[in-house]
């Protein structure tokens, strides 16, 4: 066991898989000599050589298109997209190509690639360094979509993702790289070392794709969250004294419906929480599934707490960011109902 923050856990997973499998290659903007703008690949080029860890041109389309070709050859590419906001130029290569190659070729060719990309707000990054585009990927058959909320899961899920033969979008909520941020931007930063999930086994281990976790047990209501929002949800529960159950989805596609449904059947109330803009966000899918399966157990409408339907603003970041206060309001609202 070692104590790691998210970034260290991610780097460790990359390091171990590079050592474990010669076919793993890493490339992306600034990931080589420099080790990435968030330093997730720091030291890896030195250790594994420029053949396996290298800088790429600023062409997200090219990065993913090349990764698809490499995957078809037999490599296991782990490209980095510097910010999730910049994944859109590669959207066609991801949704029409990586996700479809297996279907189109009856499995003769496939794209076993893991696209790592930092997402989410809370760093005063404005419109183009703050977005959470996960719902654009959960709509695409053939993709897997993962978003860890802590170092333990980050390492275990990243290892699973790299080993997975299907393309995985691996979202890294950048606000929690260095600490389990709970939305209280005005309080001192808490480091990961104070959090139990910073205890990370040293070698290879897997957290399975497609399994949610109960991050906080509770009985009065269920909050479905992922990434940074898991910590916001827990903070909201603790601060309000409301006995909420917080589910950390960990994988968005394929979704662990069982864990979700079991929780909501138990609590009878459900809040869906995410940073992405609300309309057509992944929360809509979650709410729909919950009402499909827990209709007779629901005592109040499912509420969404999400980013407002605007681009991500700069100066108003903390009014925009769904923090504990908004979650607490929603919890009170949902408990007052019926």
């Amino acid at each position, binding site marked *: 066991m070692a104590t790691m923050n998210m970034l260290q856990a991610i780097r460790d997973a990359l390091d171990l898989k590079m050592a474990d499998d010669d076919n793993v290659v890493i490339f992306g903007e600034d990931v080589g000599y420099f080790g990435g703008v968030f330093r997730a690949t720091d030291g890896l080029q030195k250790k594994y050589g420029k053949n396996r860890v290298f800088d790429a041109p600023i062409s997200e389309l090219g990065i993913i298109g090349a990764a698809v070709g490499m995957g*078809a050859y037999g490599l296991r590419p782990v490209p980095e997209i510097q910010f999730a906001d910049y994944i859109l130029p590669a959207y066609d290569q991801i949704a029409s190509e990586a996700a479809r190659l297996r279907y189109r070729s009856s499995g003769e060719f496939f794209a076993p690639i893991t696209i790592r990309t930092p997402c989410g707000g809370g760093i005063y990054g404005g419109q183009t360094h703050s977005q959470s585009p996960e719902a654009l990927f959960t709509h695409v058959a053939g993709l897997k979509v993962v978003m860890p909320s802590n170092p333990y899961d980050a390492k275990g899920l990243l290892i699973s993702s790299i080993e997975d033969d299907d393309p995985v979008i691996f979202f890294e909520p950048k606000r929690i790289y260095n600490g389990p941020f709970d939305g209280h931007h005005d309080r001192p930063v808490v480091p990961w070392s104070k959090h139990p999930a910073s205890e990370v086994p040293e070698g290879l281990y897997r957290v399975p794709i497609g399994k949610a976790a109960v991050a906080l047990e509770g009985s009065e209501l269920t909050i479905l969250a992922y990434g940074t929002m898991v910590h916001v949800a827990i903070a909201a529960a603790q601060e309000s004294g409301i006995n909420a159950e917080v589910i950390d989805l960990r994988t968005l596609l394929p979704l662990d419906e069982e864990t979700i449904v079991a929780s909501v059947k138990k609590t009878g109330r459900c809040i869906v929480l995410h940073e992405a803009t609300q309309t057509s966000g992944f929360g809509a899918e979650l709410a729909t599934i919950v009402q499909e399966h827990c209709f007779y157990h629901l005592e109040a409408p499912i509420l969404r707490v999400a980013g407002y339907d605007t681009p991500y603003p700069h100066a108003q970041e903390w009014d925009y960011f769904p923090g504990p206060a908004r979650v607490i309001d929603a919890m009170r609202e949902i408990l007052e109902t019926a």
Partner: protein
Amino acid sequence: MEINYKSGFQVPEPSSRPGDTPNFSYLSLPSPLDSVRPDTSCKASEMRDLAYGLVRVLDDSGMAVGPWNPNVDAEFLVRGLRAMEKTRLFDERMMRAQRQGKTSIYVQCRGEEAVSCAHQMALEKGDMCFPTYRQQGLLIAQDFPIVDMMCQIFSNAKDKLGGRSLPFFYSERDYGFFSISGNLGTQFIQSVGWAMASAIKGDDRIASGWIGDGASAESDFHAAMVFASVYQPPAVLNVVNNQWAISSFHGISGGAEANFACRGHGFNIASLRVDGNDFLAVYAASSWAIERARKNLGPTLIEWVTYRAAAHSSSDDPSKYRPDNSFDLWPLGDPILRLKNHMIQLGIWSEEKHQALIDELTLEIKEAGKQAESFGTLGKGSKPSVSEMFNHVYKDMPAHLRRQRQKLGV
């Protein structure tokens, strides 16, 4: 400053439209003797002229001449002629099948047979092509079982792709034929990625990427050029300039202002412009680029100048946008006729032999067609099972998809 304004907005227009006499004066035809064949280790910067010329081997009299003459033997020529003729006859039969409702859509490569057939004959086992929908010649030149192609075209139960894909979107890994995508251009950068992987592994396999004149405007083309320039992977990047992209002539993708070969110059990539209807020129230029790639001396961009003789697809009617007889007047002629004439000149071929070849191939295709049809055609006879549509979305079917399949009861 005294300025004279030229007026307005330019939209390029082809030299002829329906009703006009086809006008190909924009194409200049240098003699095969005029071109230069650099060593495959030549620096890209020292061979820029080749992108503005036209690599040719067959002269007007049908003889193979000049520095690019690959000096192949008679057996090779017969194989090439056979592959091209078979491709054409196959296309014709499939086109008829489409008209008879046996498949939903079909795309011919008429007029462009030399490009794919001769290129394939320069490749080696293990190399990987990333084709568009107009390179069936790559498979046929390898004697790929045409009945399998037909089964896919007919979407019957023997369609190896389970009916999931469009009829002619083959995927034949063992034949170095990458799964065709309906999204134009995407495979061009993928071919570069594949070649990068080959280089990373120290392998000597090369990738051959394909794109059309029209599709070269897509972003994937640029990505391929940038990555090929930066990493110098063992790739041959083929632009098939058949002059048309559905109804748009090559000028709409920037082929009137510049040509497609010279796109390589901006990246210092070795670039060739080649008579794509000259079987020997295609073979020679392909061999050059393939050798260069295999020796890891860098990528090559090749513009194949050819002509889309048929409609864009079975859904298209070219008489709406270009003169009907345009292929007849196309200055580079018909690739099959040109090779045939060459062989007759050489004294190794005759009209009789050619007719016999046609008869033999026609019969072979007819038999294959019958066999394929006996397994079913689109919506008739045996078909891929419905449950196939749920397969291969993922390696292992996730629960939500299994539930959907179960709900459908298949």
